[in-house]
């Protein structure tokens, strides 16, 4: 499945270039949904979305405005881990330049310092986020409702056995209201450092949480074009607006049992 890029560039042809990290190996929780939502919304804000992919061994592209990454199975994580360490400097540099990024699940874990498996061996991450993850025998599965000062209520679905703890320079993305989030001890869900967001939530995350999508897009637009987001113009595809469909989807998800 490829993300359709509009055939006719908009009048301004202002590109927002989104890099998907390891879409071949890290994609298991509908992470394509996040990519698609960004592509569409960038377009509906009047910019030209360009989707780039980075897989192991590829040349890391220049001029990236935003990075996204998803979750993988153990086999997928093994395949990308060495390569990821190789681009670590690049990623940390982009983070320090305030590049917006969204890392879900497996890549959230590997954006931290390490993942310690059940048998005590440590898989190094790139340390963009000040978090550490420990493998457990408990799989945390189910619907999640959380509250964020920056993004309001964040609604999603978690499915992970690694449990993540925040160090002093990472702030939690949200506080869990229903569900577990990062771990079973504290109420934190996800992490944030500058404009880098990490989260365990999928479903996919962005369709039901457009505030986060618009934060990523708005940040990229501000940095690249020094302008605020213009008006949002989504075509109406149903008897009610996209915004109303989104609100209903959030209500339905928040009301579901864990």
């Amino acid at each position, binding site marked *: *499945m490829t993300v359709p890029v509009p055939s006719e560039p908009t009048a301004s042809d202002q590109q927002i270039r989104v890099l998907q990290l390891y*879409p*071949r*190996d890290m*994609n*298991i*929780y*509908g*992470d*394509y*949904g996040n990519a*698609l*939502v960004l592509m*569409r919304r960038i377009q509906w804000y009047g910019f030209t979305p360009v989707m780039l*992919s980075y*897989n192991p061994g590829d040349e890391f592209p220049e001029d990236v405005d935003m990075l996204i990454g998803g979750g993988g*199975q*153990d*086999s997928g994580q093994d395949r990308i881990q060495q390569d990821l360490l190789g681009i670590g400097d690049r990623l940390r540099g982009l983070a320090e330049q305030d590049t917006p990024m969204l890392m879900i699940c497996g890549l959230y874990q590997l954006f931290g310092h390490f993942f310690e498996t059940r048998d005590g061996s440590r898989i190094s991450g790139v340390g963009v986020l000040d978090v550490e993850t420990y493998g457990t025998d408990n*799989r945390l*599965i*189910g*619907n999640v409702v959380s509250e964020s000062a920056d993004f309001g209520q964040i609604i999603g*679905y978690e*499915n992970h*056995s690694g449990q993540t703890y925040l160090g002093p320079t990472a702030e939690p993305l949200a506080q869990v209201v229903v569900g577990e989030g990062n771990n079973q001890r504290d109420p934190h869900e996800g992490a944030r450092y500058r404009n880098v967001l990490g989260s365990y939530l*999928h*479903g*996919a995350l962005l*369709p*039901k949480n457009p505030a986060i999508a618009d934060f990523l897009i708005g940040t990229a637009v501000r940095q690249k074009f020094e302008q605020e987001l213009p008006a949002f113009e*989504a*075509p109406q*595809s*149903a*008897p009610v607006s*996209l915004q109303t*469909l*989104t609100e*209903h*989807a959030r*209500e*339905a*998800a928040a009301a*579901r049992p864990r």
Partner: protein
Amino acid sequence: MIRLRPPRPATIVLGKAARALTRLRGGSGSAFPGLVVERLDPSFLAGVLAQLPRGVVVVSGTNGKTTTTKMVVELLRGQGLRVFTNRSGSNFTRGVVASMLGEIGPTGRLNADIAVLELDEAHAVHFVRAVNPQYSLLLNVMRDQLDRFGEIDTTAGLLRTIAEHTTEGVVLNREDSRVAAIADSLSTQQVKYFGLAPELRSHFPSDDELHGAGSGVVSQQPEADVLLTGLGTQQGTFRMGAEEISSELTVNGAYNIYNAAAALALVRLVLGDDTDRGALLASLRRASPAFGRGESLTVGGQPVDLVLVKNPSGFRLGLSSFPAEGVATMIAINDNYADGRDMSWLWDVGFESLAHKGVAMVSGVRTYDMALRLSYDGVSIAAHEPDLGKALDDFLAAHPDVPKRIFCTYTAMLALRKRLGTYTEVEAFN
């Protein structure tokens, strides 16, 4: 090794009584009588199955096992065999035991030559430790709703366990890399494959290819005993050994026709030279899909097709197997346990093929997740109504003169079939 003996008459009597009692109280459930028997005699199941002259066949995989099991049963019955089979249910062994209680004589003998059992991956290990099947057919490992087993490689491991516990022969899907790799751990069993001609592979996109992992370069593949070489509307061409046959089919849709190839390969392995070719082709033509798997009902003189969708691959295959033109489409998505609670999977299905005609109705608990999915793919939605019964009424009323197709998750399908029963005759399910 436990020596298997026929079940005790007392167990059978009590089990049958439990079954009769359940029925009397209006229940159709299999859990209670199964539980009674399991408590009385834990080796009941293995004991009964061990008496079958041609043994036990299991069919497993994440997609299509119900229809494939049904086709295997029909093909074997066409060969004159008496076949015991199970209907899908919540608890595998108790369900099989309950089915047995309906058919078993007082001496514990099942009136059958062979058992063909649909085995859910989740119950595989428990079952094959109790009963070693003579034959197994392993269809595929596609992403499930993700929260059911957590990991696709775990599911592949469960299928491998089935194969390792199979005593005579195993049939594998050559085109599913995880299933084909199971051959590596088999040494004593015969291994046969069913497969696709290269030019048909584009009809069956895999999860991995979808995400750009499949390089398209096919490394050396083993010979397939049954190869699907041609696909039409209710028509398929199969190369079996040296001969190629084209057949009209009752089943529809690319994936059901590929399942027919799987069923043929299994029957050829079980019967070998005893296969009656003429009878095999006749039953192949007549074999029909399991309920909800390309099942067609008639309402107001127009067909209403129900297509069960339970994971991205199944949904994609459903969309690519049945053209959207000339049909009013409804999609009903629930998120109960049997449907999968995580909606992420909807984002791994492309809906562009519906963009031209649009979707007439979206329904189910997760109406608005589905509506968002369609909206982000540029597919227009004429109506949305979370209540399944009302949605069905509105959908049927708004499109009286065209064929209709409903893509639905498992529990949505159960509810819709019930409602459809007020319009037309719907075959009872369990």
